[in-house]
């Protein structure tokens, strides 16, 4: 697919700014997303090809605004919903529930 992910040769993204002694994960929420990859792969809910295809369908704005593991999160949600494993309503309801717990 030809979309924003195909970045080779584009201009205007600014300096690279490599970080010294960078941590493997930068936020706690990145860790479960990383783990989902292996669990869902082992469980047969995803494979490399459908995962890649789902990343490429994220939408240009989300792709640019989101970070690496947010791309993964979006792809997992797409594939789990398309595969009938979860529904968007289930996710929304759980988010509302967890948000309530936090207040």
């Amino acid at each position, binding site marked *: 697919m030809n979309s924003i992910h195909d970045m080779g040769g584009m201009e205007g993204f600014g300096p690279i700014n490599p*970080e010294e002694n960078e941590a493997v994960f930068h936020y706690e929420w990145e860790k479960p997303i990383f783990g989902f990859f292996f669990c869902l792969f082992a469980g047969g809910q995803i494979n490399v090809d459908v995962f890649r295809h789902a990343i490429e369908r994220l939408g240009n704005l989300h792709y640019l605004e989101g970070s690496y593991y947010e791309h993964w999160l979006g792809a997992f949600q797409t594939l789990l919903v398309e595969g009938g494993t979860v529904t968007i309503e289930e996710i929304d309801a759980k988010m509302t529930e967890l948000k309530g717990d936090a207040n």
Partner: protein
Amino acid sequence: MPHDHHYDPLPDTELRVRALESILVEKDLVDPAAIDLLVDTYETKIGPRNGAKVIAKAWTDPDYKTRLFENASAAIAELGFSGVQGEDMVVVENTDTKHNVVVCTLCSCYPWPTLGLPPVWYKAAPYRSRVVKDPRGVLAEFGTTLPDSTEIHVWDSNAELRYLVLPQRPAGTDGMSAEELEELVTRDSMIGVKVIAAPA
């Protein structure tokens, strides 16, 4: 917006992760203990020290180096490094006239068994977009300046094929053991954005 290392999550990312994790655990599709183990493995066991062992062996064992170019995945597996995101490896060698640098313009393909998980800059738009168009400019941002006579080859990784750069062995290291040489090998030199300095 992710800009260099101080990227912030989108507004509902953290909540969405917790919700999805909770649902997947309820459905018995995700095991939190397995996630903890995976995270620990990639934080502490699988990283660029693995790749450094491959490089030091290639520098000190000519037969190994031959095998590394014949079948990189098999030669790397000899040292115990194989598996996810390193199934099909290719090693490219730096010389006095040729320098190699690796990118994944489409995403962030990276050889996990030898280098671990990629740094943020490798996954972000500035590096991915620019290194294929202006490799010398990008290398300069890493403090790397090569002679104009050195050809730069940029290798674009993909979901199947992953590259590892064999850096040049620095001068003044003739008497060093493979173990000592390993310590000189950096992650960035195996991606190809830096060269290895001679030991002080």
